């Protein structure tokens, strides 16, 4: 039993935290271990995404066809540019953060304040960009038709480019309005009706001989979606269930719903990290202004929040690779 009794010698070894076996303060070391566990959480999510992607490797949506918008360039096919811009914004806010840490080492309050401010602005711009990205993804770009078994059918013109449903759907007068309370239908409930009905799409398809369809299936040699010859297309459309515009957790006009689920979950979880990072940055920013760390004699708090902020950037580097590049 004697061997398990705490002795004074033991206390001297650790000395209430003054002894630093890893050469870092308690707070910084724990920030590192928090980051480690958070990194493993994100790996779990991205790993699950990888599993599903390999499971459906022959029919996964192609990122270049999904994220094609850029502000003020309406209708221009601009894959990757916007998300590259977001990456630069986040990397740049990382740079201002590390400059703030550097200025903290020199006890330069003015510089720390200035760089912390820039970092917060960068984070806010990034969050706004992400909201815009989500808006485009939720709103959709071309529209598609879902079959009874859940597969997505998209429409292409003679040269194989995707076209919008509006461009060929035949307007009809038989449309009914949505059942809502104010129209006296208090006893039924239904979701908003699509702007274009299935019937209009199919009639429009029949009236335009030059267009055809493509499935989610990817040609492994060309890494492009397989286009179905027009003479076979009606067999697919006879199976159709609903018109789909945009993406949400239930349905996704770009293909697999799982793609949308993972996109919303992982970029949402990352965005939540950015948001909490911005909030912590704001708190530290005001503490810098009122001189808390000046009185404390060191700017280690800026360093710790800096670690978190860089970690958020690090995660984005991986999200960028796995959602947009690979």
């Amino acid at each position: 039993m004697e061997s398990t009794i705490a002795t004074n010698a033991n206390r001297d070894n650790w000395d209430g935290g003054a002894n630093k076996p890893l050469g870092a303060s308690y707070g910084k070391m724990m920030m590192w271990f928090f980051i480690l566990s958070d990194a493993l959480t994100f790996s779990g999510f991205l790993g699950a995404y990888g599993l599903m992607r390999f499971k459906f490797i022959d029919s996964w949506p192609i990122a270049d066809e999904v994220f094609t918008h850029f502000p003020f360039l309406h209708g221009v096919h601009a894959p990757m540019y916007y998300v590259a811009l977001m990456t630069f914004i986040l990397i740049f806010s990382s740079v201002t953060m590390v400059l703030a840490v550097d200025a903290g080492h020199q006890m330069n309050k003015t510089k720390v304040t200035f760089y912390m401010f820039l970092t917060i602005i960068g984070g806010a711009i990034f969050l706004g960009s992400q909201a815009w990205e989500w808006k485009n993804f939720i709103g959709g770009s071309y529209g598609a038709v879902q079959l009874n078994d859940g597969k997505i059918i998209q429409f292409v013109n003679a040269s194989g480019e995707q076209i919008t449903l509006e461009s060929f759907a035949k307007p009809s007068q038989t449309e009914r309005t949505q059942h809502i309370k104010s129209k006296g239908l208090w006893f039924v409930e239904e979701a908003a009706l699509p702007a274009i009905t299935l019937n209009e799409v199919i009639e429009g398809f029949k009236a335009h001989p030059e267009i055809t369809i493509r499935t989610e299936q990817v040609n492994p040699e060309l890494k492009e979606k397989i286009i179905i010859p027009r003479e076979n297309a009606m067999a697919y459309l006879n199976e159709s269930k609903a018109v789909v515009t945009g993406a949400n957790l239930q349905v996704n006009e770009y293909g697999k719903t799982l793609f949308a689920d993972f996109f919303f979950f992982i970029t949402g979880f990352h965005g939540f990290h950015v948001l909490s990072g911005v909030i912590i940055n704001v708190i530290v920013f005001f503490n810098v202004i009122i001189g808390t760390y000046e009185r404390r004699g060191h700017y280690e708090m800026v360093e710790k929040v800096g670690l978190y902020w860089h970690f958020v950037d690090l995660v984005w580097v991986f999200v960028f690779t796995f959602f947009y590049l690979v």
Partner: protein
Amino acid sequence: MAHAQEHTSHTKLIWKVFGILSAITLVEVILGIIKPEFLHLTNFLGTSLLNIIFLVLTLVKAYYITWFFMHMADEKKNLRRAVVWTAFFLICYLAALLLIEGSYINDVLGPLTKWNY
């Protein structure tokens, strides 16, 4: 001041690292937009050569962020290994299992999926 650090400013290094990270991102984006066929339409280690390049470039970026922005280079070896090795080996293990299983499910499920109507 008593606490005035022996620390010299690392501003030059920071801007250099920023330059490296930007250059890598630029290369990634250009490759991602062009998708050169001799890289994209190949099969190497279970995916295309282009994807392997993206993965390597991403790891290089992660290295620069961790080592120079998070100052991992200045930490003690013990702390560095406790964090980096733990993450690296666990993630490699997890990724290997999940991706191999994903491929296997595809081998089994793929032929059963109906694509013609």
